[in-house]
């Protein structure tokens, strides 16, 4: 296996934590994994993105130009990154933020009402976890439980009080598809 994933959206949408959670989960599953964020001034516009590779072999470059798993959390990212997805790859769209249809027919679109799912349980900032749940479910990259364990293990102290809600949102995202 060799999953090459990209996550993109606004800075506030937890793009980096969603990516690093996937990477941590991969690590805990004993797989090779890298996480590579856009950094520097690229961040400044308010957009964020990162790439994650989960593989059963060593990872060469962590840079991913053509992800086979693309996750876009808002419309700007949708517009910008649609064309980057590798032919045959997944394209997960946060359909709470954009209703534009994927215009390519060589990718597999998946629409997830991530923000809505998140707001039902917690708040919109948990949309990343809803989306990750859906991604896990549809792609089967990693088992549900592995990600949940990783979430608990890596949860920073200062947002520990939000952990339960995050778990719930993740589960709901998983269940939604």
């Amino acid at each position, binding site marked *: 296996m060799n999953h090459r994933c990209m996550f993109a959206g606004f800075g506030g949408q937890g793009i980096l934590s969603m990516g*690093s959670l996937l990477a941590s989960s991969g690590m805990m599953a004993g797989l090779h994994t890298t*996480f*590579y964020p856009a*950094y520097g001034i690229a961040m400044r516009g308010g957009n964020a993105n990162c790439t994650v590779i989960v593989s059963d*072999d060593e990872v*060469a470059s*962590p840079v991913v130009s053509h992800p086979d798993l693309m996750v876009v959390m808002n419309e700007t990212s949708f517009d910008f990154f649609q064309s980057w997805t590798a032919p045959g790859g997944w394209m997960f769209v946060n359909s709470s933020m954009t209703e534009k249809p994927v215009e390519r027919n060589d990718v597999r679109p998946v629409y997830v009402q991530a923000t809505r799912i998140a707001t039902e349980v917690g708040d919109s900032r948990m949309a990343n976890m809803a989306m990750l749940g859906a991604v896990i479910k549809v792609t089967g990259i990693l088992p549900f439980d592995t990600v949940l364990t990783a979430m608990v293990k890596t949860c920073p102290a200062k947002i520990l009080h939000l952990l339960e809600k995050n778990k719930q949102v993740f589960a709901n995202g998983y269940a939604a598809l």
Partner: protein
Amino acid sequence: MSERVLLRGNDAIGEAAIRAGCDCYFGYPITPQNELTAYMARHMPELGRIFIQAESEIAAINMVYGASAAGARAMTSSSGPGISLKQEGISFLVGAELPALIVNICRGGPGLGNIAPSQADYFQACKGGGHGDYRMVVYAPATVQEAADLTVKAFDVADRYRNPVLLLGDAILGQMMEPVEIRPYAPNRPEKPWAVGGKRQGRAPNLINSLSLEEGVVEEWNWKFKAKFDAMRREEGMVEKVNTEDADLILVAYGTTSRICRAVMKRARAQGLKVGLVRPVTVWPFPYAVLRETARKTREFLVVEMSLGQMIEDVKLSVLDHAAIHFHGRPGGGIPTEGDILEIIEHVLVRRRTGTVTTRGSVIDWTIS
């Protein structure tokens, strides 16, 4: 406690430095190494150690000079332009025989360039960016794990030789997160009776200095330094060889490009092409002997760098005329692709040099000019 955690390269270097007993960190912001400075800002003070955001890279390296003179394990980090500014300071550290760790998380140049990964500071690191005859051990880790491990080693080696050591990474190494085991390091920290400061209690005064106007004295020092450099050459070289025994073509690469080459090697092997890899872990001392040895059996070498070709001169110095050397390089922040590298391998091993190689930055049968 050695547990695997997901760490960013910059953070891993910081954490490893702390575990190596780094007493003082002096830095100045520059992308793509900012997280290292920020890591030290967060963690050094809480351990009662010294963190200063200096007014410049020059101030930082000179703070390192002072702290090291006083016996501290001291370090600084920067990238391209900032490392250029430290060249005088590095030369002074060597001249005054002061240990230190300097981290360069390279970016695209020349000039301000960009903040993309690059290996174009190889010459500066290995041949002497500063003035005068000097050498430093230069570690070029390829993984975050190795970055952490070599950081610890670097402090020991710096102290052993009383000489600065450079850790050379690129933006990918600095920014990427990978699983790391932060081991229970046992740094080897010698006494420093030569250090200035503290109660003298009768000992003769110590002097930290690199100047002498007496005839012949600086020359004597240089002979002494040469003996140290020779010892480093003998003792401190590190290199990884993979699949070189039966190889028809050997890839030579360090750091991030070596990861790409390793993947290429696997793909080539899967196609039945006998490709091996030599990865210098220290780019100084350079593994001349290892490469020379492999060139007895293998007739094709392919050097891959994120530069216009710098390490390739050292490969040529190893291999000489005994094998053909090919090159693929991307300057200014470009990252070589597996496909481009594979194309050269196929050109050489499969197409037997027929047809052309179309990728920019590729040279078949490289010669120096």
